[in-house]
């Protein structure tokens, strides 16, 4: 499990994050299944294609969305969920 206070992480390299023309939305593909992503999830996950630290991610998002008041806690909650679903994995050095 990822420790978000210390580990860098990125999107599971065995999953595939992409935009689908036919469905007009972003999806995350995994063995024999997929999940359609909300706009918020896309904003977060596209920033995790390369290894990133939670604090950097939040700073980055806050810069683009300065008015989002509960951003830090929302992102933390999403990251916990994403880790549990194996969408994100620890980045090896």
């Amino acid at each position: 499990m990822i420790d978000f206070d210390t580990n860098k992480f990125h999107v599971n390299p065995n999953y595939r994050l992409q935009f689908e023309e036919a469905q007009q939305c972003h999806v995350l593909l995994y063995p024999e299944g997929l999940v359609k992503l909300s706009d918020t999830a896309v904003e977060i996950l596209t920033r995790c294609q390369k290894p990133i630290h939670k604090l950097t991610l939040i700073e980055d998002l806050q810069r683009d969305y300065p008015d989002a008041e509960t951003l830090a806690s929302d992102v933390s909650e999403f990251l916990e969920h994403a880790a549990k679903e194996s969408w994100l994995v620890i980045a090896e050095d």
Partner: protein
Amino acid sequence: MKEARKLGAVQIGFSGGEPLVRKDCVELIGTANDLGFYCNLITSALPLTEKKIEECKEAGIKHIQISFQGSDKKTNAKFGGTDSFEHKLAMTKAVIDHEIPLGLNFVLHRQNIHQVTDFLMMAENLGAEFVELANTQYYAWALHNRDKLLPSQQQLVEAENATNRFRDQHKGNMNAIFVAPDYYEKRPKKCSAGWGTTFITVTPEGDVLPCQSAKIITGLEFPNVKNDSLNNIWEKSDLFNRFRGTSWMTEPCKSCPEKEQDLGGCRCQAFMLTGDAYATDPICDKSPQHDIIEKAIESAQTDKEESQPLYFRNTQNSKKLAVMEENS
């Protein structure tokens, strides 16, 4: 594959028979990957080598499923028909070492279902993340051997309990699911998630099927990708519209309040067991032909002689069966 992507397909499964028998399998995987498909390979592992696994990974394979027919060399050879156990183990390990997501599939029936715990131990030792304990469903060759393969109720309960015990005792990363044979259910399963809703199968000769086994239904015409676009076949062909939705149904499905939940069940199973592809899947206890299932289940509760030989899929038996079916 390009046409399927345009239709909105995102997952592709290279399956068989044995997909790696095709010399261009890796090339197909590469093309599918470039088109944006998430590529799955369903294999017996027999034609796999370290080199082939590397080539598949290079081409963009994202998931490999390997099947076992027994948890030891002897059982696997008996039901798989080949002395392949050690090779399957080695290839499973190699797939994991190459960090390709792996699913292990154990094909269960009354003669190996007692090995569930051994299967799970083996999978855990190999480092598998996903294990499917899949009871044989009774189509094609399994149907001809049903009396020798359908487990008893007690065997099923014991196997499910063993799976649950294993889950409780081993809190690792391995996810194990147990798929019971639908003979023991009261309601049927949707025909491959619903005829013409989710899946599209293209055979090596280009025929297009709503499910892998649809060819067993006689009287259907199968469109071919060489003559028509996949889009037309999906939207307009008689085959894909034949059992789509609920308007084709006869009684008791037609007026059943649950018809949207199972869409009348599996068309292949209905045809195989009743001779009528429009009939209610006899798995359903509302089917007037449900006694076919009850009889099979009743027969499965009694002990069988070990000496009863299985009717294996091979050229000789295929020919015999073809003659028998022609005569009937």
